[in-house]
């Protein structure tokens, strides 16, 4: 060890210590929010918040299968009872009328501030006569059975107004007194977790306690073992995905590390070399985590999973060092290959650097991680590693292998035109089908298995659970203003309901009108004496004499004195949960959500026409409503990030071209370096297309990696070896580097997590192709006579 390198070594040790200190403080997350882009517009922010925290993410859909209907119903009741007593759950519904009595009592008590029909006109003589005559006519109908006994207290039919409005939604079928699927083979429950969608640990605990409660209650039944629990919903998906990603990342990282270590051990035949060879990778990974941690505050498990990215390329540096600086070469050999490596690292930085500007947090993190990691790994390889090599350090002599490889390269050169043809055909295919190259669906990244999605769809359809595709959002500084805005939007939505454009809508103001609206309605109620006089005139000639309406006058006079309804009054009714899930506090702002329901009638269910909704909303412009098409919005959002990522990648490619132009100072050499990379990328894309894969944003990352890794190969073939091509040691080191990359990424191709699989399936074959193309397109080299020691 030379004395002048001691400072460098100390610096490195200090750096590693500092990294470890930062890493120990770093927060790691494994949820999917890395794939929810940072939303630039207000509508998109609401969407993302809704996905993370909203009622959708808190709803668990539960099915009970097996046994007979009576057993399922019994278990449904027992389970619901248990969950209702569990603080982890807000609302638990299974069709039992737990809230019905209190709901109806609340509606009836507060009907004059809740009913949309209440106005000053309704309580004039004419208005009263009309309303009462209508109620009498209704008695002729079978529906009159509902109102008959209430007529003396509610002759204007306000309760029916309210019930009609609330009963509009689709309800699940009933069997043995509880909800059941339409085919009658499952009992159904809905449970809402108190933990929000962003609190995955809380949701995980809630799901676990649901499963425990089921197992506990089922074991009490005589044939409980026959009964099976199904749980679905966004929370289940998120929790399961996290578990899958965590376990896959761990498993695959271990597996690829093991494969790479075995390969290196085989190549080096020296455990010391193996350990030393991993130093740049470990230093780079530490640096990457630190950079992401400092830059983003948290680090995603997925980003860490792509640390394989680094292992793939940074392991190469050590391989180049060990192999090419071989036994007798020392600094001379190192200096010979270093400029090429430096250019390769800079090329990779140009490629990954573009990702840092992505609005997709996962990609931006990946960009930063790779750059920091690569720079540190390269520096460690360059300045630290050579000093750590023991005196007389030597790995096995790879020259014979290198010589044989030179022959392979010559052979590959003969295939040049065939390979060029393959690349050209691939290019033609990609060009001809360029519309189909990209998958614009966000769902393509979803790690949820198709089977789980099918169960979810079945439960959702049987429960009539809202898919909340369309919703209107209004915001205000306080809850009551948000309710007022919801009311002015509701008025417009009602016109759409009347026109049949939408089936209906939800609004927190249906259950809890704004104070202003309630006071308006209360002010419309006449004083008892006045009302009595008006009733006498209004009921003349009707079969319902005014004397029989004394309870009505009493109720009105009580209603006039009653304080407006507040959120606290709703406790114990099913309206409490409805209001809480539709009226949200977000920081200093209150948000009211108004989900729309598609029209129910008609065999081919009519779709909601967004244009009609937007037109109607123009009438409530003062409430500044936002109309959100959740599915369309998330699709658009993803598509815009995909577009952005493609543009950034192209910018990265342009940067690489510029870099090569400056470094190589020869257009011909630039083309020679870029040609194999372009051929590899096109062939991989064509291969993916032919196997029916539409490319996602992660495939794009994979393509960038092919360019990053492959540029090293192309540069070596173009490098200082002269017209004879790279020397044998260089060839051997490239083969080793390639094998580790293909092994490291090949493993990912077998992952069940789509994002990992996409990267693996792209980079694995891509790296191999890049080497093959680079070799085939290289300038002619000669194949030495076997057995001759060449140098």
């Amino acid at each position: 060890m030379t004395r002048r390198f001691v400072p460098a070594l100390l610096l490195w040790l200090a750096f590693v210590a500092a990294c470890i200190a930062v890493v120990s403080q770093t927060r790691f997350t494994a949820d999917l929010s890395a794939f929810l882009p940072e939303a630039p517009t207000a509508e998109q922010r609401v969407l993302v918040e809704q996905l993370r925290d909203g009622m959708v993410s808190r709803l668990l859909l539960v099915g009970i299968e097996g046994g007979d209907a009576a057993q399922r119903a019994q278990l449904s009741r027992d389970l619901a009872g248990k969950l209702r007593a569990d603080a982890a759950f807000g609302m638990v519904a299974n069709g039992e009328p737990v809230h019905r009595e209190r709901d109806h009592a609340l509606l009836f008590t507060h009907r004059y501030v809740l009913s949309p029909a209440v106005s000053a006109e309704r309580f004039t003589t004419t208005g009263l006569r009309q309303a009462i005559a209508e109620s009498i006519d209704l008695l002729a109908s079978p529906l009159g059975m509902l109102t008959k006994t209430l007529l003396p207290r509610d002759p204007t039919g306000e309760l029916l107004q309210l019930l009609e409005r609330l009963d509009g939604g689709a309800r699940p079928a009933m069997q043995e007194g509880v909800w059941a699927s339409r085919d009658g083979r499952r009992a159904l429950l809905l449970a809402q977790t108190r933990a929000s969608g962003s609190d995955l640990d809380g949701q995980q605990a809630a799901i676990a306690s649901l499963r425990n409660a089921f197992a506990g209650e089922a074991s009490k039944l005589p044939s409980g073992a026959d009964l099976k629990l199904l749980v679905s919903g966004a929370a289940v998906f998120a929790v399961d995905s996290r578990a899958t990603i965590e376990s896959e990342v761990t498993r695959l990282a271990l597996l690829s590390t093991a494969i790479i270590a075995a390969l290196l051990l085989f190549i080096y035949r020296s455990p010391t070399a193996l350990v030393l060879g991993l130093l740049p990778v470990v230093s780079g990974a530490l640096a990457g985590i630190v950079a992401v941690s400092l830059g983003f505050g948290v680090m995603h498990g997925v980003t860490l999973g792509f640390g394989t990215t680094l292992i793939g390329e940074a392991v190469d540096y050590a391989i180049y060092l060990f192999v090419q600086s071989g036994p007798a070469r020392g600094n001379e050999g190192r200096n010979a290959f270093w400029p090429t490596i430096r250019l390769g690292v800079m090329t990779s930085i140009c490629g990954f650097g573009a990702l840092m500007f992505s609005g997709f947090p996962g990609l931006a993190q990946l960009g930063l991680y790779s750059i920091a990691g690569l720079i540190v790994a390269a520096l460690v390889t360059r300045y630290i590693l050579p000093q750590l090599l023991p005196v007389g350090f030597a790995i096995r002599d790879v020259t014979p292998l290198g010589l044989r490889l030179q022959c392979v390269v010559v052979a590959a050169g003969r295939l040049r035109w065939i390979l060029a043809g393959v690349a050209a055909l691939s290019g033609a295919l990609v060009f001809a089908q360029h519309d189909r190259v990209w998958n614009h669906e966000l769902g393509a990244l979803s790690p949820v298995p198709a089977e789980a999605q099918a169960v979810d769809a079945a439960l959702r359809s049987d429960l009539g659970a809202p898919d909340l595709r369309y919703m209107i959002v209004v915001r205000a500084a306080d809850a009551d203003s948000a309710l007022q805005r919801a009311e002015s939007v509701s008025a417009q939505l009602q016109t759409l309901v009347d026109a049949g454009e939408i089936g209906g809508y939800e609004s927190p103001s249906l259950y809890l009108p704004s104070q202003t609206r309630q006071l308006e309605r209360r002010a419309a109620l006449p004083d008892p004496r006045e009302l009595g006089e008006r009733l006498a005139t209004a009921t003349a000639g009707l079969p319902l004499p005014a004397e029989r309406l004394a309870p009505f006058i009493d109720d009105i006079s009580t209603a006039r004195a009653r304080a407006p309804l507040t959120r606290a009054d709703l406790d114990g009714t099913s309206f409490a949960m409805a209001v809480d899930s539709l009226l949200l506090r977000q920081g200093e702002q209150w948000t009211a959500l108004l989900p729309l329901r598609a029209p129910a009638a008609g065999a081919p269910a009519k779709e909601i026409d967004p244009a009609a909704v937007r037109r109607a909303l123009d009438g409530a412009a003062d409430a500044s409503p936002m109309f959100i098409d959740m599915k369309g919005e998330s699709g658009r959002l993803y598509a815009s990030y995909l577009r952005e990522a493609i543009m950034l990648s192209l910018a990265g490619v342009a940067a690489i071209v510029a870099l090569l132009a400056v470094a190589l100072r020869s257009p011909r050499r630039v083309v020679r370096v870029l040609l194999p990379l372009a051929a590899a990328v096109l062939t991989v894309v064509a291969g993916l297309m032919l196997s029916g894969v539409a490319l996602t944003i992660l495939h794009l990352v994979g393509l960038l990696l092919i360019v990053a890794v492959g540029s090293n190969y192309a540069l070596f073939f173009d490098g200082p070896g002269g017209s004879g091509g790279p020397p044998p040691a260089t060839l051997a080191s490239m083969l080793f580097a390639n094998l580790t990359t293909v092994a490291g990424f090949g493993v990912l191709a077998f992952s069940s997590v789509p994002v990992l699989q996409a990267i693996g399936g792209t980079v694995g074959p891509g790296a191999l192709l890049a080497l093959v193309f680079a070799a085939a397109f290289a300038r002619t080299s000669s194949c030495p006579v076997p057995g001759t020691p060449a140098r």
Partner: protein
Amino acid sequence: MFKVASTRLLVAALLAAASVLHGPQAIAAEAWTVAQLMQALGKHRNGQATFSERKYLAVLDQPVESSGELRFQAPDRLEKITLKPRPESLVLEGNNLSVTRGKKQFNVRLSDYGEVAGFIDSIRATLAGDRNTLERTYALHLAGNAERWTLTLLPRDTRMAEVVTRINIAGTRGLLREIEILQADGDRSVMEIVAMGQAR
């Protein structure tokens, strides 16, 4: 509770009306038995009639009247189209009962109400001439002769009896003329039926 009760009543009224829709049939007048009545009722697959109904309610001074058309189509579709005082259509098909009044539509699934499902099965059994099923829900009493008979249905189920005390169906041979429903609260309704013959 009142909701279930009223639905039950609603279905009772509706289905009682269904039995009306069978066309006239010549049957020997002498010994008129439940078995013969069932056979006469069960033979027809569809029919159409006009109705006028009066409801006598304690809360009102005068009865409320309504009128319209009834249509039945085998095996399980029944429509009650009210024209006066306000247009309303009520369609029972299979397990679904839907009421359309003005722009509003209400849908009820019969199986949501266990007792009512038993009720509907028994009425369908009547139409099919399946006396055994019918007798599971009601005690049957037949009075009169083939030309002028009265079938009385008394609910066996106590929960049903809390709403409906008795249903009297009067008819001539396979043709129904009047359905009277007596409710537990003392209110009653009488529906008069005039058959229009077979539906097209």
